[in-house]
């Protein structure tokens, strides 16, 4: 049995039978998969990766159908198998995990019940108690904390990362010999994605499961796979080990894929620090707490501490980056910075003037000076207005121009951001994502602001467009002396775009450092953990084994006492439990960590 491949796919063709004629989706795909092997399948979206993984489990939706070739599972041909046989095989031997875990389960049924009924369906010999025990063991194996309590919780109580673990438990409960992971890390934060990959690796070692890991992210696939399959437009271009593929790619397509992966450490150009030392925006002890209904009590609310005591300065003309994972308070901070919401405590100073002390009229005037550009290019533009109307609206609101002057100013700005003039009469739905993002930028720029806050503005765009817009930002900065704040979860982006970077964790700024410092000598354990989790094809300077964290960030409703990071910190000491660290500086870098304080004191006394 051992030398027979678990799965062999020979000359597989999948065709879409469309009314307009047959269109090939996969053509001539062949590969073998050995026991305990991990095969990575990579390519761009639309390359047929999901179709391939669905074809293997005999689960192709209409109008797709296998037209040629065969899929052999331990020598049995699956494409000619009856639906019934395939169904049994799919539940028992082959497991499939999709990319959207949050909608995979019935929201009205507790998680545990889902898993137990699935397990009992595939292994009828088990009693209910045995099945329950097995699921609980697996919860433990995939590191779901307090498995007994979570067993009875409902899907909506699980985060994306936890849900993906549940799906893995669901897949593993039947002890499959083949696991197909279709883009499972896509919706997750990097550290969580890395944890899932690490988990899959461990499971393969423990259970000897063969895995097909489909991913659009080359570094992620390289990380886990022993062999990579490069797909383009339904054809296999290349099969190689990750190392050979990266070192000596055989096709232009693979070379392009490799080039597209952002580099973290091997960057030739990073933005230089600002010459000015004058802060344009100063945040002083800003805090924001939201009160939401507590569902465990009849009356009563719970306090979500979204931003806690954040202080930093942004210097005139610099590019400042704020990074952190979902739920760390980035978006709340962006709302505070752009003064859509006022902080509960603390204050923000623009140009040395306190914003909270200003009148509504002064704040309205101030809006011409700083602008926030939102994340989603699809929903942030009013659908019923033409592009010219959208870009011109701020001018009307602030009575800066009207009539001919307005049209001229709009045309001028459109030219500056690289929008063709004939887009002016179009509606937002007629534009591409990057054009819309340019409209957003133009709308902000039309008032000639001094500070632009970019809240994940570039994250919905692909690498190429990101690079083009970054170039545009550079050009505009040179012309208009803009100051930028990039708020992002993407370390590679801030590495390329920012001179100084602040790292956020649970509503606190845990480290503020210059670009080079942060990436080469991060002081805070969380910064190191984020770096270690970065999917990259370079050698990661920070090994995930020593730096990656377990678990997920605690809920902002109850934040751990002392240092909020201590529950996940690999080097936490006794003092971290009681004392809340403050930002300490060594001149350029600010760090919020007791361990770092100790080392500063040591160097000072030495």
């Amino acid at each position, binding site marked *: 049995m051992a030398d027979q491949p678990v799965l062999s796919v020979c000359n597989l063709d999948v065709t879409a039978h469309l009314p307009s004629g047959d269109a090939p989706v996969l053509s001539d795909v062949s590969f073998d998969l050995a026991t305990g092997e991990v095969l990575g399948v990579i390519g761009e979206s639309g390359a047929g990766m999901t179709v391939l993984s669905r074809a293997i489990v005999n689960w192709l939706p209409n109008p797709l159908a296998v037209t040629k070739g065969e899929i052999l599972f331990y020598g049995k041909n699956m494409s000619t198998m009856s639906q019934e046989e395939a169904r049994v095989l799919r539940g028992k031997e082959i497991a499939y995990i999709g990319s959207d875990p949050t909608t995979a389960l019935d929201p009205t049924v507790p998680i545990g019940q889902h898993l137990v009924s699935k397990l009992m369906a595939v292994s009828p010999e088990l009693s209910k108690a045995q099945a329950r025990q097995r699921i609980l063991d697996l919860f433990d194996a995939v590191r779901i904390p307090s498995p007994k309590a979570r067993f009875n919780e409902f899907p909506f109580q699980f985060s994306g990362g936890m849900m993906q673990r549940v799906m893995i438990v669901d897949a593993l409960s039947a002890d499959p010999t083949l696991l197909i992971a279709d883009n499972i890390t896509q919706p997750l934060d990097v550290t969580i994605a890395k944890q899932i990959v690490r988990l899959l690796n461990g499971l393969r070692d423990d259970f000897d499961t063969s895995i097909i890991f489909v991913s659009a992210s080359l570094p992620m696939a390289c990380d886990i796979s022993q062999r990579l399959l490069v797909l383009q437009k339904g054809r296999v271009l290349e099969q190689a080990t990750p190392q050979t593929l990266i070192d000596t790619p055989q096709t232009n397509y693979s070379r392009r894929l490799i080039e597209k992966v952002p580099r973290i450490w091997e960057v030739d150009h990073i933005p230089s620090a600002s010459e000015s030392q004058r802060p344009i925006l100063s945040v002083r002890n800003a805090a924001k707490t939201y009160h939401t209904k507590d569902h465990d009590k009849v009356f009563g609310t719970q306090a979500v501490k979204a931003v806690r005591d954040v202080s930093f300065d942004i210097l005139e003309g610099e590019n400042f980056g704020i990074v952190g994972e979902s739920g760390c308070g980035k978006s709340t901070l962006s709302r505070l910075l*752009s003064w*859509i919401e006022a902080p509960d405590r603390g204050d923000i100073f623009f140009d040395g003037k306190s914003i909270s002390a200003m009148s509504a009229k002064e704040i*309205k005037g101030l*809006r*011409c000076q700083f*602008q*926030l550009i*939102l*994340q*989603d290019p699809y*929903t*942030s*533009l*009013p*659908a*019923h207005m*033409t592009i010219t109307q959208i870009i011109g*609206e*701020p001018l009307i*609101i*602030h009575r800066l121009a009207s009539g001919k002057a307005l049209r001229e100013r709009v045309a001028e700005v459109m030219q500056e951001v690289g929008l063709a003039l004939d887009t002016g*009469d*179009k*509606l937002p*739905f*007629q534009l591409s994502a990057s054009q819309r993002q340019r409209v*957003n930028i133009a*709308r*902000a720029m039309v*008032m000639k602001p001094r500070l632009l806050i970019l809240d994940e503005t570039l994250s919905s765009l692909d690498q190429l467009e990101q690079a083009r817009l970054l170039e545009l930002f550079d050009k505009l900065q040179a012309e208009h002396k803009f100051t930028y704040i990039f708020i992002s979860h993407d370390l590679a982006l801030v590495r390329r775009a920012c001179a100084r970077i602040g790292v956020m964790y649970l509503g606190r700024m845990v480290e503020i450092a210059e670009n080079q410092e942060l990436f080469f000598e991060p002081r805070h354990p969380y910064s190191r953990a984020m770096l270690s989790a970065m999917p990259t094809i370079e050698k990661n300077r920070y090994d995930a084994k020593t730096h990656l964290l377990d678990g997920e960030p605690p809920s902002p409703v109850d934040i751990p006492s002392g240092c909020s990071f201590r529950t996940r910190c690999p080097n936490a000491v006794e003092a971290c439990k009681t004392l809340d660290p403050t930002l300490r500086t060594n001149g350029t870098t600010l760090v919020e960590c007791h361990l770092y304080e100790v080392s500063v004191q040591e160097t000072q006394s030495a």
Partner: protein
Amino acid sequence: MEKEKAHFWHTVNGRMLSTAWKRPGFKLGLFVFVFLLLMALILPALSDVSATKISVRERFLPPVLMGNANTAHLFGTDQLGRDLLLRSLVGLQNALLIGVLAVVGMFIFGAVIGIVSGYRGGLVDTILMRITDAQMSIPVVILAITILGVARPTPFSVIVVLVLAGWPTYARVARSAALSESKKEYVRAAKIIGASNLRIMARHIAPNILPPIAFIGVLDVARMMIFEAIFGFIGIGIQPPTPTFGNILADGTKYLINAWWITVIPGLFLFAALLSLNSIGNALEKARNDVFGGHS
């Protein structure tokens, strides 16, 4: 200008209209309605027969099709010898005037309350919505008897009663749409560029949520016409001698056995008008479901 048109058919409203146009019910309804409307507007003005002039010699004339030789009264006459066709058409004029103005009134009033309530939220929302609830709990006919019994029933007061009774529904629908709309990114974007609340409500939220509600308003015109007829029937509508569907029908019921056409002729006009309006409204609502159903 050509471009503007192309845009329009791609917007939600444009797509709704073009989808509705594809339904036969919409075209038929529109044709019948426009025909009736033109008749109601033109015929009473051109004809030398009066709708209110009493002529005792010509009373109880049956319609021409029933063997009546007097071609001046195609649809016959009533108990006082007044021409039924003209009376019905004037009645239709009144019914349409009241129906359309009442719907426009309740639409505007309800939309303003609803948008303010949904956008501002909090205490404003609570207060406005409790007022809405209170208003909704009063039955229309009771309200009408109270107000029209005290005040003189004029077209204006009938419209006021109908607006008072009808606005809460519009307020509720507008509120829920405004509530979900006000959480969208483009509203945040508008706040960032410094737009005032009034501007956000009028310029950003209203154009997005009102057109679909307005389409549904077509169905309500028919409903308001029925109410107008009910008021006339029970004697609290526009007062005689001005003909309305309600008072013609009420008079006609006395002669139902011998001169059934006095009730049937205006009844047919009312029926045709309501049917055409309903099939237009129905097609619009179906189209709305198609357009929105395709989205989510």
